[in-house]
């Protein structure tokens, strides 16, 4: 079975500091890492391979330094990597097109595993977009995946209900972090990962040289953090009623 794991290098959102004067997040010089849930995706891919056999390829669209981070996934047990160099202007449309074209260049995949979302943007678009571009089924938000040679069954958390779905291959699956506990690579695996191949493809290598984004991010604004400090302290019934009204207005009672 050919399994592709989509992984993204992101800034470590836990390390982001806010510029005290502008209130904007400062994104320069923040350490980068593999987006957390992508490690769950990789772990699941390795588990599927352990069960039904095959090969796990890590696919990343990113800057050249992402290669270093991809090695963490190779150390966990993925077999090889493909890094598609990200163009200057890329949105989810561009990135997912690059991913689907890269998968086609690989000769297709039976199973594509993505995280439900990346921790920096948390859009959750890449998985469904790639499935859409390849016109294959998508099983999203999986917290349990059971792969068999002819079909894949997934238990999915759709927020208001739990759905069990199954699909033939090829299929794209997105996983939540509950799906597994990503393994730590051993020292031997880390040393061994240096020998695993990572190919670097340019956009023209996959016939996607002139992609135009559908969205441009024109600003990252700060988030106002001040508190309202409205304290009701007189008649208890009145206070309670005012508080309940406020909560209702904030949309928090639903």
């Amino acid at each position: 079975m050919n399994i592709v794991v989509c992984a993204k290098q992101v800034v470590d959102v836990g390390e982001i500091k806010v510029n005290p004067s502008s209130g904007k997040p400062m994104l320069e010089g923040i350490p980068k890492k593999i987006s957390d849930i992508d490690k769950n995706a990789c772990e699941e891919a390795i588990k599927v391979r352990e069960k039904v056999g095959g090969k796990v390829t890590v696919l990343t669209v990113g800057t050249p330094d992402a290669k270093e981070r991809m090695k963490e996934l190779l150390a966990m047990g993925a077999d090889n990597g493909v890094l598609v160099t990200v163009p200057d202007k890329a949105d989810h449309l561009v990135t997912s097109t690059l991913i689907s074209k890269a998968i086609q260049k690989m000769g297709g995949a039976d199973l594509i595993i993505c995280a439900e979302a990346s921790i920096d943007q948390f859009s959750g678009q890449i998985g469904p977009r790639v499935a859409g571009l390849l016109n294959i089924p998508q099983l999203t938000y999986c917290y349990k995946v059971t792969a068999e040679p002819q079909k894949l069954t997934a238990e999915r958390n759709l927020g208001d209900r739990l759905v069990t779905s199954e699909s033939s291959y090829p299929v794209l699956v997105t996983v939540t972090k509950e799906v597994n506990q990503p393994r730590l690579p051993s020292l031997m695996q880390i040393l061994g990962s240096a020998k695993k191949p990572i190919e670097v493809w340019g956009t023209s290598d996959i016939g996607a040289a002139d992609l135009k984004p559908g969205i441009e991010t024109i600003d990252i604004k700060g988030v106002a953090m001040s508190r309202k400090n409205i304290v009701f302290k007189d008649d208890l019934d009145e206070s309670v009623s005012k508080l309940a009204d406020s909560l209702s207005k904030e949309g928090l009672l639903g």
Partner: protein
Amino acid sequence: MFFELSEQQTMIRNMVRELAEKEIAPKAAELDRNEEFPDEAIKRLAELGILGAIIPEKYGGPGLDTVTYAMMIMEISRACASTGVVTSVHNSLCSWPIMYYGSEEQKDKYLPILARGDRIGAFAATEPDAGSDLGSLSTVAELNGDNYIINGTKTFITSGPRAGIVIVFAVTDRSKGTKGISAFIVESSYKGYKVGSIFEKIGIHASLTSELIFEDMPVPKENLLGKEGDGFKIAMATLDGGRIGIASQAVGIAQAALEESIKYSQARHQFGKPISSFQAIQWMLAEMATKIDAARLLTYQAAIRKDQGARISKEAAMAKLYASETAVEATNNAIQIHGGYGYTREYPVERLYRDARITTIYEGTSEVQKMVIASSLLR
């Protein structure tokens, strides 16, 4: 020269840090309180190849360099100093002498066991009446047929109650002084091997420390490490490496104290401001950070020199002296910064303070380190 970890070392650091933060640190306080050996952590360290970090690939280890090894001990000790010292002793004081002085047969037999962590390693030189003064050892080994018969009592043995393979130093020829000391690879299953009393210590509670008692213990003569009379040389060279391990442990403890202090001083408000805005606190933090960096660099320097094959008595002693004194100072300041809370078990700094204290003592006190440094200056 600018010191920077390589790509691979960074990956290893990230892995060990994740292990330390997610699996080791959360249990450190409880193990400390219960004086309980970190069996689970040691098992994980073995699975991931960390317990046998320096053992060559040929014998089932990853064969890591000393710099990476030191960095790993720092990361582990930042989470749990007890687990740090158990790992350090297993590598530096037990596996290393077998790697460097062992016969091919000894390496084939013992290194894979140590690499897999099937047995925990220990080092038994100190006796009730002989610490750094190895010349006055009273444990004796007498050749009798195919065995040496060892009699004596060793004390302050790190991992003593859990050890399976112990490097034991004993006198084979009293007339030759330090040249009459020999080293042996001893298995805990040997007849006459006993674990004596377990010590109640100020800190590193989870690393069990005990006496080892040998009563007419037969040790096969093929377990003699090196030649008869090589013991002193082996002990000195082994301790040079061990001191890199202890320096790393001290850096890890100090680093934890600094991080706790930064976190607390930013969260704790007094007089309407976070206490980190007061210069008194800032100076303490600045001094801690500077000394910790200096200690780390001294440690890495000794490790680099060791990997280059140089004699490192002076560098290792400097690193151990400075890092351990820094750990004691930094953890002391960390308690001061935490105020009353720091003196309670609610915050981890009290454990760090207790754990740091041993680092200026074991594997040679600060005073012994200064003797070593001075003797190399005045040679």
